[in-house]
C-alpha cells in the first residue's frame, strides 16, 4: 500500500506547484495590445484583466504561440474573436484557435469566401455553438472598462444581400466586390488610449469611413493591409493623428509589403513605426492614461 501514498504525495506536490505557477502567470491591471508575429498576415491580441479579444488569426497555427505567450496557462477561453474579412492570411489561424480554445463571441461578416479553408472554419464555428455577431458601424462591445467600437462595414454595405435572420450567420452571400472592402474597422479604447484597427481597408473606402465621423485622434494605428500601397492614405493619417503605427507583415513576403511610399508617409509625419517582421511580437502596455512600448 506504500506506493499509493507515493502517488498521493506526488499529486499533492504537483497541485501545489501548479498553483504557484498559476499565481505567477496571472494578468496585471493593464491593457496589453499585441500585434502577433504570424508572418504575412494579421493577428492582434488585446489582454485586459483576464479578458481577451483576438482580431484575426494570421495564416496558420503560429497564432497559438502568441496566445500561449500572453495568456495565463489555465485560461483557454477567448472572450471575443473578430474576423475582419474572410481571406486566408486573416482567418487561417482561427481554424486552429477554434480547435484549441473556447470562444465567447465570434464577430464576422456575412460575406462568404469560396475557399475550402473557410468552409472548415464555418463548420468549426457552427459545431462549437459559439454566439455569432455580424458587425455593422452600430455595433460595440464592452469588457469591463475596455470598449470596442465597430466603425466599418457600414450597415448599408453589410446589409447588402444580408440574410435577415435576427441572429448572426456566416457565409450568407457571395460578393464580386474585393473582400478587403468588407474589412471590420474598429476602435479599441481604454480610458484615454485609443487604437485604430483597420483590417485590409484601402483608399477606395477610406473617405467614406472618415465621412461617418467616428474616427478622430488616436494613439495607435494598425497600418491597413500590411503596409500595402493599396492601404494607408495621407487623409487617414491626418484625421487619426496616431503616435505609433504597427505594420503586421512577413519577412521577405512576395508582395513587397510594406510599400516604400507608406513608410515615407509615416516617417514624414514623425510617427513611430513598429514592424512585426523586424521586431517579432509588438506589445503596447497601457493603464488608459499613459502607454509604453514593451521591448
Amino acid at each position, binding site marked *: *500500500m506504500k*506506493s*499509493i501514498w*507515493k*502517488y498521493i504525495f*506526488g*499529486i499533492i506536490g*504537483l*497541485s501545489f*506547484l*501548479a498553483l504557484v*505557477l*498559476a499565481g505567477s502567470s496571472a494578468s496585471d491591471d493593464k491593457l496589453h495590445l499585441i500585434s502577433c508575429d504570424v*508572418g504575412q498576415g494579421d493577428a492582434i491580441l488585446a489582454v485586459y484583466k483576464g479578458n481577451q479579444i483576438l482580431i484575426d488569426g494570421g*495564416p*496558420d*497555427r*503560429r497564432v*497559438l*504561440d502568441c*496566445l*500561449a505567450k500572453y*495568456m495565463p*496557462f*489555465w485560461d*483557454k477561453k477567448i472572450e471575443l474573436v473578430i474576423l475582419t474579412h474572410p481571406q*486566408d492570411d486573416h482567418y*487561417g489561424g482561427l481554424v*486552429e484557435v477554434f*480547435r*484549441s*480554445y*473556447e470562444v465567447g463571441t465570434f464577430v464576422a461578416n456575412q460575406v462568404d469566401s469560396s*475557399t*475550402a*479553408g473557410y*468552409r*472548415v472554419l464555418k463548420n468549426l464555428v457552427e459545431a462549437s455553438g459559439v454566439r455569432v455577431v455580424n458587425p455593422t458601424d452600430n455595433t460595440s462591445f464592452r469588457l469591463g472598462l475596455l470598449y470596442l467600437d465597430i466603425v466599418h462595414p457600414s450597415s448599408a454595405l453589410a446589409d447588402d444581400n444580408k440574410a435577415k435572420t435576427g441572429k448572426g450567420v456566416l457565409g450568407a452571400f457571395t460578393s464580386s466586390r474585393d473582400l478587403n472592402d468588407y474589412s471590420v474597422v474598429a476602435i479599441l479604447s481604454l480610458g484615454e488610449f485609443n487604437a485604430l484597427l483597420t483590417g485590409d481597408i484601402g483608399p477606395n473606402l477610406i473617405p467614406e469611413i472618415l465621412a461617418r465621423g467616428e474616427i478622430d485622434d488616436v494613439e495607435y494605428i494598425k497600418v491597413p493591409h500590411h503596409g500595402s500601397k493599396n492601404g494607408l492614405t495621407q487623409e487617414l493619417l491626418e484625421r487619426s493623428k496616431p503616435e505609433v503605427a504597427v505594420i503586421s507583415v512577413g519577412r521577405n513576403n512576395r508582395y513587397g509589403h510594406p510599400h516604400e511610399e507608406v513608410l515615407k508617409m509615416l516617417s514624414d509625419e514623425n510617427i513611430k513605426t513598429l514592424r512585426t517582421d523586424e521586431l517579432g511580437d509588438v506589445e503596447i502596455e497601457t493603464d488608459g492614461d499613459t502607454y509604453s512600448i514593451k521591448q
Partner: protein
Amino acid sequence: MKYFIWFFLILVLTLRLITYNPKFSEGQKVRISDTVSSEPIKYSYYQGFNLQGLKIYLPSYPEVSYGDFVIIEGVVEGRELKNPLLIEKKEGRGVLYKLREKLLGNLRKALPEPHSSLLAGVTLGIKSGMPSYFWEALKSTGTAHVVVASGMNVTLVASFLIGLLTIFLPRGKAIVMAIFGVWFYALISGFDAPIIRAAIMGSIAFVAQKVGRLNYAWRGLGISALLMLIVKPNWITDLGFILSFLATASILAFEPKLEKTFSFLPKVIKENFATSLAAQVGVAPVIFLTFGQFNILSPLINTAIAPTIAPMTMIAGVGSLVGLLIPDLGKILLLLTIPLTSYFIGVVKLFA
C-alpha cells in the same frame, strides 16, 4: 540445431534484401491508394505526409488526417511524389480513430502550446501540431525521441501499468493485463508501423524480462526483428524501427544495473527512471547521427528531463481519458502536468 534457426533467418533476410526492389521507378506516373498512417505535418499553405515511402505535399485544404483513405496521383521524383493530385478522400471512421481525436482535443483544449503538443507527443506520438521552434529545440538538445513513437512510449506504458497493477494483483496477472494495456495503447496511438513493431518488441522483451528469463528476451527480440525485416525489408533504414530495436535492447542490457545504481530512490520513481534512462543510452547516439545535431550536453539534458516523462505520460493519459467522461475533472488533472511540462520546456529551451 540451436544456431540453425538464426542462420536460416539471417540467410533469408540477406536474400530478401538483395532481391528487394523499391516499388517505384524514377519519373513514373503513379496512382497511390492507401490509408494515411501518420499524422500529416501542417505548414502555412500546405500539408505533408508519407505514403508508401513517398513524401507528398498537398494544399492545406481539404485537410488530410491520420486514418483517412486517400487516392493520390503524381510523378515519382526521388523520394517525393511531385505534382500530387488528391483524387479521393474517405475520412477515417474507426472508433479508435475517433477516440484518438477526442483525446488529442482534450489535451489541446486544456493546455496552451507548446505544453499540449509536448503531451500529445509523449502520450500519443503525435507531433503534427507542434510549434516548429519547439521541434527544432527538441532536435538540437537530442531530446526529440521523447515525442517519436518508439519502443520507449510502449515501455513506459507497460512499466506504469505493471507498477500500478501489482498494487492490486499478483505479478503474473499484472503482466498479462499490462500487455493488454500496451496493445490498447498501440491501437489508440495510431496502429501504424512504428508503434506495432515497438509493441511487438517491447512486449516480448518486457515480459521475458519480468518473468526473469533474460535469455528469452534477447532471443525474442532478435527473432521478431529479423521476421519483421523479412516482411518489410525497407524498415532496415527506418529511424523508428532502429530506435525501437535499440531502445528495447538497451533496456534489456542496462536497466537491471541502473536500478541497482539508483537503489536509493523510491521504488516507483526508480523503475521508471531506470527504464527511461536505459532506453536513452542506446537511442541517443542514433538520434545524434540522424538529426545531425550533436549536443555534447545531451546525456545531461536527457537525465535532467527523464524523471518528468513517466509522470507526464501517466497524468496526461489518465487526464485525457477522464476528460471524455467528466471534461472539467479531466482539465484539472491535465493542469497538474504544468509544473512537469514547464520544467521540461524550460530545460530544453535553456540548452537549445
